C-alpha cells in the first residue's frame, strides 16, 4: 500500500506537484494520467525516493521514504521515463548488477534474472551490449530491471513509449500478469493504455489532483450529467429559439452547421427527451437525431486536463455532479460561433 499525503514539490516559485494526496491499495493497477508536464514523473520520482518532496509524506508499506529510505526502496521496482541503462554492459551483466544492487540473495539471483528475462522476452538478447539494442529492447531491459526480484510495488513511468504495437500488447499482458500479485503504478498520456490495464485512474493537471476513480466510473459520472446530441432540421436561430423556451436545459453548443440541419450538444437537468421532442415538433422542426452522448474516457480526460482553466474547472464540476457554473448560455453561444 502506498499513501501519498499532501505532496508538494516546489521548483523556485513554480509548484510541479501541488498538494497531491492519494492512496494506492494492494494489488491494484493504478494509472497516472495527465498531459505532458502535469507532474506524473515528478510524483513517481518522489515516491521512489529519487527526489525529496518540499512538503508532504510518502508512506510505502508503512515505511516513510524520507525516514527509512532503504526499507521503503526495497519494496519498489522502478522503471523511470528513460531506462537507466549502462551502454557498456551486456543485458545479463546489467541485470546481474541490478540484482546485486537490489540485494537479491546470491542463491536466488540467477533464477530471478532468468525469470525477468523470460517475462520480457529478452533471452535472445542476453549477450548483446545494451549500446547495440533498439529502443524497444532497451525499454524491455529497463522493465526487466524493474520487475527483478519481484518487489511488492512496481512503478513504471510510461512503460510502452517507443514500442511497436505488438510489443505494447505484450507489455500490457505482462502488467496484467504482474497485477495478480503486485501493486503496479504506471503513468501514461495514452488513454487506451490506461483504459486497458488500470483498475483505478488518477488524473492530474498542473500538479494538482483532479479525479481519482475507476475508468468506468469516471465515464459514467460525466455521462450521468445528461449530455445529449441533437440533429435538427432547421436553422440555428430556429433551434436556439426552441431551446430558450424550454426549462431545464443547461449549456449548449453548436457542433456542426450544414445547409438545412444543425447539430447541437447540450446539458439538461434530468431526462428531458420527451419535452425536447414535443417542443421541436411543435415548432415544426423535425428532430432527425436525439441521443444521449456518452462520455468516453478520452472526453473526460481532454476536458479535465484542458489548458484553459475555465474548461477544466467546468469538467471537474460536472464530475462532482454540480451544475456547471462557468457554462452559461452566453458562453456557449460564443463557443458555437467559433
Amino acid at each position: 500500500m502506498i499513501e501519498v499525503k499532501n505532496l508538494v514539490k516546489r521548483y523556485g516559485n513554480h509548484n510541479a506537484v501541488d498538494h497531491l494526496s492519494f492512496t494506492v491499495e494492494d494489488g491494484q493497477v493504478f494509472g497516472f494520467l495527465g498531459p505532458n508536464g502535469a507532474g506524473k514523473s515528478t510524483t513517481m520520482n518522489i515516491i521512489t525516493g529519487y527526489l525529496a518532496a518540499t512538503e508532504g509524506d510518502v508512506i510505502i508499506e508503512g515505511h516513510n521514504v524520507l525516514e527509512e529510505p532503504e526499507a521503503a526502496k526495497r519494496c519498489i521496482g522502478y522503471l523511470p521515463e528513460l531506462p537507466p541503462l549502462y551502454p557498456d554492459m551486456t543485458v545479463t551483466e546489467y541485470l546481474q548488477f541490478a540484482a546485486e544492487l537490489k540485494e537479491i540473495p546470491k542463491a536466488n539471483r540467477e533464477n530471478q534474472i532468468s525469470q525477468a528475462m523470460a517475462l520480457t522476452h529478452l533471452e535472445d538478447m542476453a549477450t548483446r551490449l545494451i549500446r547495440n539494442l533498439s529502443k524497444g529492447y532497451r525499454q524491455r531491459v529497463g522493465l526487466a530491471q524493474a520487475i527483478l526480484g519481484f518487489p511488492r510495488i512496481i512503478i513504471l513511468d510510461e512503460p510502452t513509449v517507443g514500442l511497436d504495437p505488438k510489443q505494447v500488447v505484450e507489455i500490457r499482458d505482462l502488467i496484467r500478469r504482474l497485477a495478480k500479485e503486485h501493486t503496479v503504478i504506471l503513468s501514461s498520456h495514452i488513454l487506451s493504455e490506461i483504459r486497458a490495464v488500470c483498475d483505478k485512474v488518477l488524473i492530474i493537471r498542473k500538479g494538482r489532483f483532479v479525479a481519482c476513480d475507476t475508468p468506468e466510473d469516471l465515464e459514467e459520472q460525466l455521462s450521468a450529467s445528461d449530455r445529449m446530441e441533437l440533429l435538427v432540421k432547421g436553422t440555428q436561430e430556429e433551434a436556439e429559439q426552441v431551446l430558450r423556451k424550454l426549462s431545464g436545459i443547461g449549456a449548449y453548443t453548436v457542433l456542426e452547421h450544414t445547409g438545412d440541419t444543425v447539430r447541437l450538444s447540450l446539458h439538461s437537468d434530468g431526462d428531458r427527451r420527451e419535452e425536447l421532442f414535443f417542443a421541436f415538433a411543435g415548432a415544426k422542426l423535425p428532430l432527425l437525431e436525439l441521443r444521449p452522448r456518452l462520455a468516453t474516457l478520452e472526453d473526460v480526460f481532454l476536458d479535465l486536463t484542458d489548458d484553459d482553466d475555465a474548461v477544466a474547472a467546468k469538467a471537474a464540476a460536472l464530475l462532482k455532479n454540480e451544475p456547471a457554473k462557468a457554462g452559461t448560455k452566453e458562453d456557449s453561444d460564443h463557443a458555437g460561433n467559433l
Partner: protein
Amino acid sequence: MRAIYKREVRSYYNTLTGWIFMAVMTAFIGVYFMVYNMLNGAAYFSYALSAVLFLFMVLVPLLTMRSMAEERHSKTDQLLLTSPASISGVVLGKFFAMMTVFLVPVLISCLCPLIIRLNGTAFLKADYGTILAFFLLGGVQIAAGLLISALTESQIIAAVGTFSVLLVMYLWDGLVSLLPTSASGSLVGLLIILLAICFLADAISNNWMVTGGIGLVGAVALVGAYIHDSSSFNSLLPNLLGSFSLTDAFTAFATDHVFDLQGLLLYLSLTALLLFLTCQVLQKRRWN
C-alpha cells in the same frame, strides 16, 4: 556498495579509461625511474616519485570526470538512488573503484625499490613509505575529482574543474607564500575564508539561521581575538593555509625520509571530508 564497486571497476577496464590511466602512469613512473635511478644512480626511488606528482593533474581528471557527471547525464543515477543502496554506499563504491584502478600502477612501482636493491644499496623503508604517501595523496585528489564530478552534469566541466583544483593544490606552497604576513592582512584573509565557509554552510543546510549564526560567531571571535592580541595574527594566514599543503607531507617522505604520520592523517581526513561533501551534494540535489 559492492555491486557499484564491481560495476565501476569492470567499466574502467571495459572502456579505455582504466587502461590509459594505468599505462600512462606506469610509463611515466618508469621513465623517471630510468632517468633518476638507473642512469643517474640515485638510491632513493622516492625522488622519481616526487618528480611525477604533476601527472595527477592530467590523469586524475581523466579517471574522475565520468564518475558522477555521466551517471547524472544519462539518468542512470535514478537506478542507483532508487535502489536500497545508500548514498554513501554509492559514493564509496565509486571511490574505491577508482582507487583500485590507481592501485595497479602503484603496485607495479613497488617493484622499483627491489630493482634498485638488485643493483646496490636501497632504502626500502623510505621508498615504501613514500609509495604509501603517493597512494594516499592520489586518494585525496581522486576524492576531489569525485566531488567536482558530482557537482556537474558535463564531463568536460568536471575534467577542467578538477584540473584547476589540482593545479591550485600543486602550486599551493607557492601561492601561500604570496599572501600578506601582516596581522591585519591575516584578519582580512580569515574573514574571507569565514565568508566562504558561510556560503558552503548555506548551500548544504539551506538555512539562513545556521549560516548567519556561523558567520556572526566566527566574525565576533576573529575580531575579538584580533583586538585582544593582534600580534598573534602575524603571518597566521600563511601558516594556517600552509598546513593544508598536500605536497609538504609528501616531501617529508620523499626528500627528508621522515615517516610523517601527521601528513598521512591530513591526507586521510581530507579524503574523508571530500567524500562526505560528495554525499552531501548528492543528498542536496534531491531537494532542489
